[in-house]
Structures are given as structure tokens and as C-alpha cells.
């Protein structure tokens, strides 16, 4: 069960929509920790036992790709599944981010169905124990 989920996006509208999709997709009991950029997200992730990170790609200060790199190169954080959501994503971007350790890459607009599909894969792989 997902208890703490970080949602990082510089758009409050996008964070609201992502949270709503996560709730509909089965995370209605999760505690959502919001961040407006990658730096804020990383600080939250370091201070909390986080089960899932859902982050935008293009953000000020630290973007989603840099955040992913920090997560994947930290022994303490490397197992935290990270989903990247972006308006500027296509097959080329997706392949690059998956190579760098993203659990999944989704194009905006996200839907409850697209999130649910990724969450079911997470459950199958027992990423959060």
C-alpha cells in the first residue's frame, strides 16, 4: 500500500490533476506531499519514508531528469519508484528516462486509467514491499 506519495510539478493545476488521478486509481488513503520543483521534492524525499515519486519533467531549479538522477544514485533512495510525467514526452524521451531508471514515463494529460495501469505494474513487481 502506498502511504506517502510525492507529487512534484511547478503547476498547481497539474499537481491537483495528478493527485486526483492517483486517488481515483487507488491511492485515496495516501498522504500526498507536494513540491513545486525538483529541489523541494528531493528535500521531502530525504526527510520522509516515501513510497512513490510522481514528477514533472520540466521544472525550474531542478528538473525531473536531475531529480531522477539524484534518486537513482543515492543508495538510500534508489529503490523509490519514480514516475515521470511530461507534456514534452514522446518515444525518444521515454526511452532515455527509462534507461536512467524511471519506473514509467507518462505523457500529459494523465488519466486515472493510465496511472492505474502503472500502479498495477508496481504492485506486480512489489516495488514497495
Amino acid at each position: 500500500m502506498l502511504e506517502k506519495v510525492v507529487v512534484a510539478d511547478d503547476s498547481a493545476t497539474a499537481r491537483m490533476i495528478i493527485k486526483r488521478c492517483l486517488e481515483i486509481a487507488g491511492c485515496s488513503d495516501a498522504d500526498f506531499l507536494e513540491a513545486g520543483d525538483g529541489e523541494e521534492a528531493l528535500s521531502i524525499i530525504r526527510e520522509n519514508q516515501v513510497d512513490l515519486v510522481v514528477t514533472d519533467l520540466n521544472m525550474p531549479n531542478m528538473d525531473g531528469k536531475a531529480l531522477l538522477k539524484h534518486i537513482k544514485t543515492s543508495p538510500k533512495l534508489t529503490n523509490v519508484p519514480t514516475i515521470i510525467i511530461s507534456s514534452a514526452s514522446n518515444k525518444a524521451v521515454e526511452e532515455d528516462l527509462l534507461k536512467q531508471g524511471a519506473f514509467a514515463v507518462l505523457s500529459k494529460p494523465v488519466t486515472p486509467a493510465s496511472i492505474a495501469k502503472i500502479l498495477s505494474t508496481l504492485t506486480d513487481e512489489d516495488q514497495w514491499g
Partner: protein
Amino acid sequence: MNSGSKLQTALSSAIVRTIESMTFEEVEILDDGSRDFTSANEIVWAKLPILKPLTGELVLLMSHNYCRSLINNVYGSTDNESNLNAENDILAEIANTIAGRFIDGLIPSDIEFLLGLPTTGKGNAPESAKKITTILLRMGDHPLVISIHGEDFKPFNKS
């Protein structure tokens, strides 16, 4: 407008997918947007640069009333100050998402693309480079206009 063009197909698909997913409202595509609703309404707008591999702009116009109803739809009621921030934010996010899906539908999927940062405003529509195509939509009683600007998009506007 060239309704059979790759440009129109990609733009229509991007708009419908974005608006319906973000607002949970059904979209009706009306025509080529030649009717000028903007002078009769208080309008708000977002303008988003498209940087790579094609260069141009996407411009989104909607009535202020519709923007407010979208905010209620997404956020619930908010106070006046946060309403203003939310208006700019929702306009920018819709423009950004439509632009992403539009370019994704236009260019080969193995080519990365780059979008700029959106700007938003209220009142007269922003000045832009040459307009290539426009789509007028309706959500319920509310009109919404989206146009693509820039010579790079001209070759895609053929059947």
C-alpha cells in the same frame, strides 16, 4: 483552415485529449475559428513558444467566465487572490499540454522536441508571428480558440 491536413488532425486530437482529460468536459469542434468572439467577451489567453525541432507558437484564448468555471472544476472554490494565480496556472498548463500532444502528433516519435515557457494575460489577444491555422471549440456554452503560428508549420497544413 485545411480540415484534412496533418496539422489540423494533430491539433484537433491534442485539443480533445487535453481538454477532456483535464476538465472532464466534452469538447465540440465548431469550425475554423474565423468568427471573432474575442471582441464580445472578456478574454484571457496563454501563449506558448514551440522551440524545437519546429519553431512557432501556440495561442489559446478563452472567456474569463470559462476560465473561472475551469478553476472551480479543478480546485473547488478559491479566494480572489488565489483565483488569479490559478487562472494563470490553468491557462499555462492547458496550453503546455495541448502543445506537447500537438507536436507529438506532428513529428516522428524518435525526435525529441522542446517547448518554451508559457506567458498568460487578460484582454486583447497577444501579438504573434504569422497565423497558420485556428480551431474554434465549444465546451457547453463557452467558446475557446486555439491557433498555431509560425512558418515552420505551413508545410503541414496541406491535405
